[in-house]
């Protein structure tokens, strides 16, 4: 069995002068898997990604990414990242294609130009996110959802082994969320990339990921999507789940109980996404 792509071993992190954002989190992400990290706002999800990227160092514990320290993995170009809030300055006079080319170009020495393989990777990345038709558009003319796809394409074009996505469906409508879930499946099958998706949106992670970690400062469970239970979700979100996700069909099954680390409620749930989007709905 190959080594996990990402390992968090007893990781604790606290921002200066603040309470612990993460407490003793131990979590493995298998190579080639798609892990969705669910949790409430302020539950430590984005902090977990920043630790994997090496933007933060754990107060205690160890983080390993693809056998390296996170910073080394980032410096080797092994990680692709799409942030929650883009800090991109969209007034830059750049086309979509030029933005996507930034990914592979970053690894080149100043004297070298993009290879044919790099151009093919850019084409494939644009096609994967459905952005081929807007490749020549000015990046400032894109909608939020379109720019989100361009950011994913830029991450893919650098051919990473691990893709980290922070709240990728914020501001995207239900139709776009379904398309994003399909994209997650394609990333794993077509690109063979290990994916970590952080979200408070249960639809995205339940339908696009094969493992789900429920995080709210501590790791509450780490299960397959069908192992999620109302009890675990209520514990993580500290609310009545039905009240939050009222449009989800949460059907109790008599399947075996959730194998979460701390909780084993009696009734696992099956989560199905609301019906397919209507025609003409805008893409993400």
């Amino acid at each position, binding site marked *: 069995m190959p080594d996990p792509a990402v390992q968090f071993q007893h990781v604790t992190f606290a921002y200066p002068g603040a309470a612990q954002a993460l407490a003793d989190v131990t979590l493995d992400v298998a190579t080639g898997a798609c892990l969705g990290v669910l949790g409430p706002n302020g539950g430590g999800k984005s902090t977990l990604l920043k630790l994997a990227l090496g933007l933060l160092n754990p107060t205690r514990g160890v983080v390993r990414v693809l056998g390296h320290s996170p910073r080394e993995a980032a410096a080797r*170009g092994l990680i*692709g990242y*799409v942030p929650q809030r883009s*800090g*991109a*300055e969209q007034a830059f006079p750049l086309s979509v294609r030029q933005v996507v080319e930034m990914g592979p170009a*970053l690894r080149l020495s100043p004297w070298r130009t993009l290879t044919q393989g790099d151009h093919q990777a850019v084409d494939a990345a644009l096609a994967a996110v459905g952005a081929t038709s807007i490749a020549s558009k000015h990046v400032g003319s894109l909608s939020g959802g379109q720019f989100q796809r361009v950011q994913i394409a830029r991450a893919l074009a650098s051919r990473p082994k691990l893709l*980290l996505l922070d709240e990728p469906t914020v501001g995207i409508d239900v139709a776009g969320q379904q398309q994003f879930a399909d994209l997650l499946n394609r990333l794993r099958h077509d690109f063979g990339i290990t994916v970590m998706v952080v979200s408070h949106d249960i639809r995205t992670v339940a339908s696009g990921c094969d493992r789900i970690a429920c995080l709210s400062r501590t790791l509450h469970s780490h299960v397959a999507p069908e192992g999620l239970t109302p009890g675990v979700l209520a514990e993580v979100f500290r609310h009545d789940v039905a009240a939050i996700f009222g449009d989800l069909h949460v059907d109790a099954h008599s399947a075996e109980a959730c194998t979460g680390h701390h909780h084993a409620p009696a009734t696992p749930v099956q989560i199905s996404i609301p019906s397919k989007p209507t025609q003409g709905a805008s893409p993400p």
Partner: protein
Amino acid sequence: MNTIHYLTDPTLRDLFLPGVITGLAIAIMCAGLSVLVVLKRLAFVGQGISHAAFGGAGVVATLGWMSAAGAVSLGAFGIVFGFCLFAALAIGWLSLKGKTEADTAIGIVLVASMALGAILLTRAAHLHGSSRGVSWESFLFGSMDGISWTDAALGWGSAGIVLFSLWFFRRPMVFWAFDPVVARAMGVREPVMSLVLMTLLALATVTAMKLAGVVLATAMLVLPGACALLFSRRWSVVLWLALLIALAGVVGGLVLGFEADWPTGPSIVVVLAAVFAAGRVYSFLQSRRAASSPTPAALQ
């Protein structure tokens, strides 16, 4: 034609030709930087750095190196550059560390340098007398008079360093300028990029100060890029336009200065500001035309 006369008369040519040659170096150097300055909203940073040069000029005047040439001019350049670099790094450090808001940091550095420069220049006038050529106007608004062939060589050397550095760091620099959050996550070292950019800004400011003065040096680092971005949304076109506009501003400003007997620094800025105004009109007309043209849906 005064311009032809200035550049062909043997005596006047030796006086003004180094200024013209230096002006071209400044135009080329500032063009590339100005696009980044505008897009990264560093215009006020440029103000802070250029005004720091006033403090450096005060030190140079106190040392009595103000109107000397040759090797001494190199030392003066180094001192003023040191002041600008220190100011740039102080601004960058204060704002990067989040200790002080960037605009507050710039404001503090700006006024402190101006105050130091004013005190030292006054002292220099007492120490060395007015014969050492301590002219506040030339510091503030630039002058063709004091530019030597050594300054021209320094100007082209600086331009070479700036252009090579921009080319060498173009990929991480543009990525960082465009999207700093993801650039950091993908291994771009933000402190290195910030240090490189601030150093280049300091170098360009010191060089531009000779011709345009402390107050107007920033114009060379802002207006070419700001103008170019009004005319195009394509990266390569914007870079070439910024270069052409900077060259046109310097050449046009020098000609205007020679013909109307105006100071060169303000003349250059007036020309660049006129191009910017024309660009705004062009941009306004373009947006009006786009708004009034029928949409594809309306054509169906």
